[in-house]
């Protein structure tokens, strides 16, 4: 065999072969993933495709299964908190809050008002950071690379703010059962307010850059339409559900923490550019939610009450065996639920975490029938799935 490059005819394809390839129209089964950048983590899609048009895509998950639920059964209630960070590392504050609230219900602990406000501020900042990743990567996945660094630049400011609050940039471990670990540092309100003022202007720029961008809108309109009935049947949650026209937000409709104290709007998809529940609606809902989060943070800082940030929590947390508690919170990826059953000692007997990404993955096979391969990438991005949250 000659070295590559010495005989050009050896690497050239004959015209006959090219013709054969064009005429070929058999279906093939292609693996997309597990290490594919558009899968936002490690997920494999078994794509049954005939050229560009897919018959269907079957998601294969489990590559990031770290048996967090099993760990929860071998860990004391308070000691499990850092593990919840790893459930969803892009919006870890919510995973913290779900666990804290489940335990507070189980042990009937009343959280001080100031702690609830600290939670709201931290969570809403985290929601902005999470949505920035979502909208940035979604734009990148459909080919617009420019918005991504802009989104990440803003997210860095939030990472800095949250680092100042709890010492960590991703896996916060900030919340405690009965409150939060640290009070707001000196001058924190001013710095957060300065960021919010700055960020609201950036959002307007961001909308001009991408949300209302003609090419982007044309690319996403009418893509991956999820009707209202389908969304509820598949139990889609959060921004994905609201984009399908369901006017439901746990923070407003089933209020928890300090949310009843604040005024905010719940953006709902209307099909402004295409059909209700298309990929653009999901993108748009997230951009509006960032705006509303800014409003909530501003109000929370204004109304911030004085007082302790930790409740009096017994040193040993114990509940009668078999008692169960269920918590629901509105995470960045929607309704996140913790179901905990108390064990005989200071550990849970069973812990079940139901996350938004898990349900969103269940709908992909149905939506992928008959769409283009490139649209699958946009569809996954628009559902904002995070792989560790699916597998846990």
């Amino acid at each position, binding site marked *: 065999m000659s070295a590559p490059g010495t005989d050009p005819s050896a690497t050239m394809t004959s015209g006959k072969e090219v013709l054969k390839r064009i005429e070929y129209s058999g279906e093939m089964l292609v693996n997309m993933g597990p290490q594919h950048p558009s899968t936002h983590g490690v997920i494999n899609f078994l794509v049954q495709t005939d050229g560009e048009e897919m018959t269907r895509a079957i998601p294969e*998950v*489990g590559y990031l*299964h770290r*048996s967090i*639920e*099993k760990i929860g059964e071998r860990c004391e209630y308070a000691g499990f908190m850092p593990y919840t960070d790893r459930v969803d590392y892009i919006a870890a504050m919510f995973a913290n809050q779900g666990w804290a609230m489940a335990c507070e*219900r*189980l042990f009937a602990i009343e959280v001080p008002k100031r702690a609830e406000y600290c939670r709201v501020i931290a969570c809403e900042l985290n929601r902005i950071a999470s949505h920035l990743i979502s909208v940035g990567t979604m734009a990148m996945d459909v080919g617009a690379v420019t918005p991504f660094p802009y989104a990440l630049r803003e997210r860095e400011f939030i990472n800095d703010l949250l680092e100042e609050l709890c010492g960590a940039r991703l896996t916060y471990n900030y919340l405690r059962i009965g409150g939060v670990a640290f009070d707001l540092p000196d001058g924190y309100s001013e710095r957060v307010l300065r960021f919010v003022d700055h960020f609201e202007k950036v959002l307007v720029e961001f909308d001009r850059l991408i949300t209302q961008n003609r090419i982007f809108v044309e690319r996403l309109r009418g893509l991956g339409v999820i009707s209202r009935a*389908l969304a*509820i*049947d*598949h*139990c889609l949650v959060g921004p994905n559900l609201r984009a399908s026209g*369901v006017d*439901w937000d746990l923070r407003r*409709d089933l209020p928890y923490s300090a949310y009843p104290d604040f005024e905010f709007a719940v953006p709902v998809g209307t099909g402004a550019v295409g059909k209700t529940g298309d990929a653009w609606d999901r993108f748009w809902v997230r951009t509006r939610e960032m705006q509303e989060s800014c409003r909530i943070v501003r109000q929370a800082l204004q109304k911030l009450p004085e007082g302790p940030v930790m409740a009096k929590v017994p040193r040993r947390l114990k509940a009668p065996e078999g*008692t*169960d*508690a*269920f918590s*629901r919170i509105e995470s960045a990826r929607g*309704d996140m*639920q913790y*179901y905990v*059953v108390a064990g005989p000692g200071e550990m849970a*007997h*069973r812990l*079940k975490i*139901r996350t938004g990404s*898990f*349900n969103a*993955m*269940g*709908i992909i096979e*149905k939506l992928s029938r008959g769409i283009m391969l490139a649209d699958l990438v946009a569809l996954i991005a628009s559902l904002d799935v995070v792989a560790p949250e699916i*597998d846990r």
Partner: protein
Amino acid sequence: MNAAEIHARLSELLGARAGTLSAANKDEAALIAPRDLLEVCRALKTDDALAFDALMNLGCVDWPGKSEIELVLHLFSYARRHGFVLKCRLDRAQPRVASVVPIWSSAEWLEREQFDLFGVVFEGNPDLRRLLMPDDWIGFPLRKDYEEPESWHGISTVRESPLDGFVRLDELKKKLAASRAETVKAADAPKPDGAP
């Protein structure tokens, strides 16, 4: 509607098959017989006053002491804005129950997950395969008596610990306290030669 009202309406529709409503727990739950599950779920979804259009959560709890696996369903209604919890107890040796996929599509993945981790067979689920574990995995990891295999396809699941002889901090504290008590005892004991 609250849980008691929902259960009253369910009893009106199905009689004794609506099961009994627990009162002791934080979230009241109706305990029903496994063979009635599909029928109860259908009534919960189709009845206009109940209208449970979403299955939020489906989980199993293993109770080896009672030799049963408890199936817990958290339902929610976006139309009526209320929630409800259903429970049913399955035989641990042969856990089988009807799938609720014909009623709520979200059950498909939730049931697959519970099949994978608990070995509960949901009859009628269109795609009952392992979800999180590899397809050829043996055993059901979230059962209480599960023992992790030592290897999988020649890959060891056990690693030698570099901290061999490592003592847990609380045990170390206990040991130290015991040895300190020994020293104090020895110091308090009268010296044989009467020295101070």
